[in-house]
């Protein structure tokens, strides 16, 4: 029997609105499961196609820039660290430090997206555009490799943008004093979301860039 939620009634809550941080976090974790399964469908396709076209996935992986991919990995892992630090900072009352750390996280997200832009532009430059004549003429496995590459890194990129927007929003909440050292579950949940974005990339990076 979990502790009943009414025990959490916060100072700002009225009779009907009860604050339940534990409940909020359960909700967020459930949502993270859905994110993992959303990507899970694509990972399933990856596994199946990799099994079918090992040579094409090998040569496809070689065309990706390990340096930019590695850099992006470092950037994202650092940003996860700063999000985690920002929560501790807020709990200790260091509001400015917390905002600074979150600002750094957003800068990391922007760096990541710029690198992605450079990578995708290079691919487009080589005629690797979904739906193009060039893609249609590639050996079958390679077309599928690049299709998966665009689908998975693209969906991940969308999540990076959503995560950065959420962090911007929580920064506004902190600045307005709605999210504080006593009431920081929103920041924690946004942080969890950012970690899942990070985690997905940690799987994408080796699968596309390194296994070849």
């Amino acid at each position, binding site marked *: 029997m979990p502790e*009943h*939620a009414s025990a959490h009634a916060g100072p700002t809550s009225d009779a009907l609105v009860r604050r339940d941080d534990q409940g909020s976090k359960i*909700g967020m974790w459930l949502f993270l499961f859905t994110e993992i*399964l959303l990507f*899970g*469908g694509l990972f399933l396709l990856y596994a199946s196609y990799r099994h079918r076209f090992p040579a094409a996935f090998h040569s496809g992986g070689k065309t990706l820039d390990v340096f930019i991919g590695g850099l992006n990995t470092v950037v994202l892992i650092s940003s996860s660290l700063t999000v985690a630090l920002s929560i501790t900072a807020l709990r200790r009352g260091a509001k400015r430090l917390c905002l600074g750390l979150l600002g750094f996280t957003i800068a990391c997200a922007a760096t990541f997206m710029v690198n992605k832009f450079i990578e995708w532009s290079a691919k487009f430059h080589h005629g690797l555009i979904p739906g193009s004549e060039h893609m*249609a003429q590639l050996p*079958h496995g390679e077309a599928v490799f690049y299709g998966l590459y665009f*689908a998975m890194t693209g969906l991940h990129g969308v999540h990076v943008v959503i995560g950065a927007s959420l962090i911007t929003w929580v920064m506004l909440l902190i600045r307005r004093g709605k999210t504080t050292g006593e009431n920081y579950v929103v920041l924690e949940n946004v942080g969890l979301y950012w970690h899942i974005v990070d985690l997905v990339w940690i799987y994408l990076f080796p699968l596309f860039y390194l296994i070849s």
Partner: protein
Amino acid sequence: MDHATAGESRGFYEPRGKGGVASWIFSTDHKRIGLLYLSLITAMFGVALILGLIIRLKLMTPGNTLLSPQQYNALFTLHGVIMIFMVVIPSIPASFGNIFLPLHIGANDVSFPRLNNFSWWLYVIGSALAVASIFTGNGAPDTGWTFYVPFSERTSTNVSVAVIAVFILGFSSILTGLNFITTVHRLRTPGMTWRKLPLFVWSLYATGWIQVLATPILGITVLLIFAERVLHLGLFDASLGGDPLLYQHLFWIYSHPAVYIMILPAMGVISEIIPVFSRKPIFGYNMIAFSSLAIAFAGSLVWAHHMFTSGMSDAAVLVFSFLTFVVAIPSAIKVFNWLSTMYKGSISLDPPLLFALGFILMFSIGGLTGLVLGSAGTDIHVHDTYFVVAHFHYVIFGGTGLGMFAAAHYWLPKVFGRMYDHGKAAWSFWLILIGMNVLYFPMFVMGVQGMPRRYYDYLPQYAPLQMVSTWGSWILAAGLVLMFVNLWRGCRSGPPAGRNPWGGATLEWTLPAPLPAEAFHEDPPAPEPYDYKGVHPDA
């Protein structure tokens, strides 16, 4: 235990705040949201029902009648898409679940009331898009509700809008499930242990997990259809090296568990109704609760039985066939427990019980014929025939549909505080039950004889049974109209139903009828949900 605000209270639907439409469509009150869902689901049911009747009318006689082949394809697609994603998936959880899950556990609302309202809005937007896909673009989608590639990638009809609608509806379903799981974990009244949870709550809890864990797969699958159509990624396109069969795998990884999203809540309703009208504690509480979880788990591992004829290794066929038989066990556990509950009970055949018994009959027929489809040898013969259509409609319409109607007859008097006419309810039940069987049983026969599903025309040998089936659709429609009119008039102007018309022992029956805006001013004590000693019907 007296939570009544006496007098002529109109309960939770009494105007409050500024009143008007905004106080409903932006409400975070789980009861209002439940009613919002119920009304929209009913409306969509009406639309898809009419589509179904038109399909049946077209099939009454062979030949090129009433509809063009293209119109026919669009009609069965829309009938399926609307019925599945807009009616049956949200049906019981989003309407009666929203209203009664919090009350069953002694809570005043779900864990995330604003998210609840948001999920309703997603439902509205998704439904609006789905309806828009009929009238915009190059004509209504004609792929069947399964959106199978490669056709769904190539057809010029408005599939793109339809799959985005399905994505949004899936999101709505996820949020409802997420909300329910959290609510059950966090908001149970003190003393309400897991073994005191009403079985309806158990079934919604199991359903919530399927919604959360399976629906994202549908999300990515329909997004990929969209991407294939717009960006031509080639992931399912054989001309680019993709594999259309993988689409079918992804689709059924969601869509088979989805049938348990549809049926589990109905089983929960039946588990509530049977003991109340038998005046006996539910038989095998633990096993019924456990079987809900077992169905949710095992049901997630059987998807490929939809693909026995699509091309799979014999080993895979064997495994999926075996697992399909395994799922039948927890379903059968429930049926046996319901029957054991009734054994030597003091049974009153009130309308909710009639519908519940109809559920057991229809679900048993549908479930047993499901085993014919689940065993690979017989499936080869009846795959993609009317046999599948009949099986599915027995389980989903005869099961979930009758479960929903049972819930309506059981709980609407509580929601509105007014009682419908019992005689008319019984009449409507018999019309619906007879109509369903006349409509769908001939399809079993035609299926065994080889009549393929989704065909525009048929050989003369099927003409007599097709005719009978269409007659059945009219009987069914008459019963449904009678039922809805009776419920509508009962809810608006029936005699007062009283606080506890059936003598239920779960917490919602301790509340006044109509339900008050705030149910519990303090945490209520947790009752024994199926102990009827000292609980009497008060009407």
